[in-house]
Structure formats: C-alpha cells, structure tokens
C-alpha cells in the first residue's frame, strides 16, 4: 500500500542567487519499506527529506502521506502531523544538551496529553529497546557517539510514528557503531516502521529494500 507519494515536487531557494534544489521529483514509498536516499553532496537529499518531513514546503508539486495532502494543512496542524506520523533522526543526532537521555526521549511527548507516568513508561521502554536501559539519567555529553545515536533513535520512535526519517545517521560514527544503528533501523523496519534514510555509505545499501539516487535535484534512474 502506498504510504508516501511525491508528485512533481520542486524546490527553488530564492536568495542572492536562485538554487533549484529539487526539480520535479516523483516517487512513491509503500508502507513498510526501508528506503535509502543517495547522491552527491548538494544534490538535494536533505531538501527532499525536509519536504518529506513536512518542514519545508515545496515550491511546486504535491506530497501526500497516508492520503493527506500535508502541505495543505495549517502550520499548526503540520506540527501536529509531524508529531503523530513522523520520527526524525538528525545528522549528529541533535540531542538537547540540557536534557537527560530519558528527557530527550520524552521530548516528542512533551506537548501531548498523556499522563506523566505514561510518558515516562513509554520513554523507558524505547530506551530499553535500543539497549540503554541503564543510562536513563545521563546527559548527552556523558554518552558515547553510538549511545547518542541510540537515544536519537529512541526519541524518533517514542511516539510510535509510521515513518522514520533519518539524515545521514551514521555519518559521524565509525563503521562498527554505524552498523549498530543500521541494525536498529532494520529491527524497527521489521516491526513495521517505514524508513527513509539519507546515506553516503554504500555498505548500508545491503540492508535496505530500495535506493533512490538523486543528482542535481533529480531522481537518477541509472
């Protein structure tokens, strides 16, 4: 079943000089797929991911997720949509430095109406799932790179999103720890999450269902 559909999505950044970051990108992603997005630096991968993440409205074209035309929603509803449907794993993980591992994981639940205990239980359970059951109260700087990655993954899945979006999640890790994160994604994918991951690392490709290549803002089918 089609979960994500991008139709002729273009993005032009207007600044001192116009940059056409995406040019009529069309593709579909089915529910349960694990998709890699690859391409040279500056080709538009992050732009594409931010559009899929409902953070960056396309200049033209349409994005439909779960039959919702997401960019037709109001700004506040888009925020609600992200909270309900999406989980982000950012480059360098971007944990909030003044919050503990547990608090970082609870962050996406901060504005939801759950009880305190439920939020805590949910965060503890995902932290245990990623193997950090004993490091709830560490601040990010007290964790290794791989552990920070795991907290970031836990934070991305605590709200049980349909879709996980990851921008070069292994970029800052050594091969071995990077592979651990990819393993984690594979498990999540098996558990039903649809995953889109920007990556530079061709070794990662053996773990994904499909790869979308991007060059100069276009899908490269070769």
């Amino acid at each position: 079943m089609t979960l994500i559909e991008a139709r002729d999505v273009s993005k032009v950044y207007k600044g001192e000089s116009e940059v056409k970051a995406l040019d009529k990108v069309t593709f579909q992603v089915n529910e349960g797929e694990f998709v890699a997005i690859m391409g040279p630096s500056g080709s538009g991968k992050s732009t594409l991911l931010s559009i899929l993440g409902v953070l960056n409205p396309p200049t033209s074209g349409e994005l439909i997720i779960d039959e919702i035309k997401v960019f037709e929603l109001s700004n506040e509803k888009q925020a609600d949509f992200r909270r309900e449907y999406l989980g982000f794993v950012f480059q360098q993980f971007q944990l909030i430095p003044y919050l503990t591992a547990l608090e970082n994981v609870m962050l996406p639940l901060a504005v939801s109406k759950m009880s305190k205990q439920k939020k805590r239980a949910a965060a503890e359970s995902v932290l245990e799932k990623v193997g950090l059951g004993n490091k709830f109260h560490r601040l990010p700087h007290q964790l290794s790179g791989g552990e920070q990655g795991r907290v970031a993954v836990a934070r991305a899945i605590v709200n049980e999103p349909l879709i996980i979006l990851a921008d070069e999640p292994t970029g800052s890790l050594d091969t071995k720890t990077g592979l651990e994160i990819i393993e984690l994604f594979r498990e999540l994918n098996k558990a039903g999450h649809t995953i889109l991951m920007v990556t530079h690392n061709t070794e990662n490709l053996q773990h994904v269902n499909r790869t979308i290549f991007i060059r100069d803002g276009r899908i490269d089918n070769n």
Partner: protein
Amino acid sequence: MGLREIVFNNLRRRKGKMFLLVTGITIGITTVVTLFSLTMAMNDKMLKDFKEAGTKVIITPQSENTSFSFGGITMAANITFDVKEMPSNVVNILKNKVQDLNIKYIAPKKIIGVKINQQPSLLVGVDFKNELYTKPWLKIAGKLPESDTEIILGSSSAKFLKKKLGDTLKVNDREFRVVGILHETGGQEDEIIMASLKLVENLSGSTNLSLVELIIENESDVENIKALLPGVKVTPVKEAMKSRKEVIQRYEYFAILVSFVILIIAVLIVLTTMMGSVNERVKEIGIFRAIGFRKSHIMKIIMLETSITCALGGLIGYLSGVLVAKSTVIFIEQKGLFIQWHPLLGIIMIMGSIFIGLLASWFPATKAANLDPQEALRHL
C-alpha cells in the same frame, strides 16, 4: 515531562546562561525596593510623629478687624494695641471635655498693651507649664517666674531693653524682676515680654483671654471643638505636616521616576538577552518544531523561561532591596526610621518582574516561533 520541565531543566542545568538576566533584574528591583522602602518608612515615621505630637488648634475671638500675628499665629486686634478678647470660660469649657476630645494641653494666653519706658509694648500672659509643652523648642536661661513680680524676656527684647537676668524692668510704673531670658529662636518669641497669666489679669483687671492654644490627639476632633465653642474662631494648624508631606511626596515622585527608568532599562536588557538566547538556540528550536511542537509551544517555552528568570530576579531584588534600605537607615543613623518587610511590595515586585519578562520576551518568542525549521536544521 511537559513544556514546564523543559524550561526548568534548561534553567537548572545552564545556570550561567541566565545569570546576566537575573542579575540585571535583581539590581533594578533592588533599587526600586530600596527607594520605596525608604519613602514608606518616612511616611510611617511622619504619621507616627504627628500622632505623637498631636494637632495644634488655635482658638481666637471672632473678628473682622485688622489682625497682627504672634508666634506665627494671626490674631485679631484693633489698631491701638487693644487686643480682641474672649471670655475665660472658654478654658473651663475645654477642661470639662479633656477626656472626650482627647485634649493633651490647654495653653491660654492674654495679651495686653503696656507702657515700658514710655513706649507702648505688648505683654503676654501665659500658663507657663502648658505653654512650654506646646512650644517644646523654647529654652530659657534663668528660671520661670514664680511670683507676681517676675517676668521673662525674649532674646531681642532683652537686648533692646538692655536687661540681663536679675535686672528690674518698669511696666506701667510697676517694677518687675527679669528672672529668665529665652534663647534666640529666630522667631517672634524673640520679641516677647512674658509674664504669668495671673499677673497680666491683675494688670488689666480682666480675666478675658486673647488666645488659647490646644494640642489634641486627633485632628478629627476639630469639628467637635468648633461645635463646642460657637462664639470663637477655631483653627487647626497643619502647615508643619503639610510641608513634611510635600518633602516625602517629592521622594515618592523621585522613586516613581527612577522605577520607570529602570522598567525601560529592564525591558531592554531582557529583550536583548532573550534575542541573543533565541539566536543561540536556533538549532534547538528547529528540533522542537521538527518533532511536532507548535509555534505556540515555542512561544510558551521562551516566555515561560523569561518570566521564571525575571520572577527570580524580582524575588532576590525585593529581599536585597529591603536589606539595602535597612542598612542605609543604619548607615545614615536615622533613628525612628523603621524599614518594614512589606509582603505586598514583594508580590508587586515579582509580578512586575514577570510583567517585564512577558513584555520583553514577546518579540524574541515570536521570532523563535516563526523560525523556519528547515533553515534551522540545515546548518546541523
């Protein structure tokens, strides 16, 4: 965890970040609280002083005639030094009502024209004991008259008449001994020639009075005295209170002006600090937005953070302001000035600080809420 915990954890774990803000607000509020504590203490002291001193009331005969003044009091008189008089039973009527009207002192006076060295002069007959109570600033060299042949002189009168203690003075051909000379006051007492009321009554052959000064505890009794004595003029003396009130009022205006300036400075400090803070946290705000915080949530975070910080500054400022005021009073050795802990002032200061925080953080918060999350995350 909710937005509040995010804010608390930020403030708790990054104390240094908010140090400037708390310090700025604290200094501002300390200044305001010090000024207001001092003016309030001055006000309290003034009210207490006047309550203790009581209200002075002057009772004079009704008159439309020319008047002259004595001891700062305007009196009815005709041109020939024939001072207008009222019957002495005024004093008896008042003495019967001492309890009801909370009268502290009754000081009757009789002023008559006399001849001294062929010159027309005024002789003032007083009840010395009560007179000195109502004019505590009078100091005498020598003693008070004890017999009907003794008088005292004001300092200028003594000089003018060339009399020293123990000299004799002829008044209407009768001889009197100068037993006391008043210290110079710079006022009209310097010109006075004073004798006992009884002596003046004897000299004039009448017990009528020219003037009665009263000290009462409550100003509100003035109307009752007026009702009690319909034939005479009853005038409360308020000048002293009024002028001191004016001085304190000037301090109050100063405090208000300073507070206003501080309010503006505080708003600017909060505004620039929070703008800096928002600029520093662009990334963090982008992450909040990406994981589904609404714009309004971002605004709440920034404004909550600012108001908590400002409230803390307000609380510390209130505490230190009162302490500074207390030590100021000790330092300037102002006895009787008592600096109080006014919890209401504290609450007003904390609320005011929160108001400053909300006012000044509104713009940075709006800016934070409207940050483009993609732009923010792009520089990760």
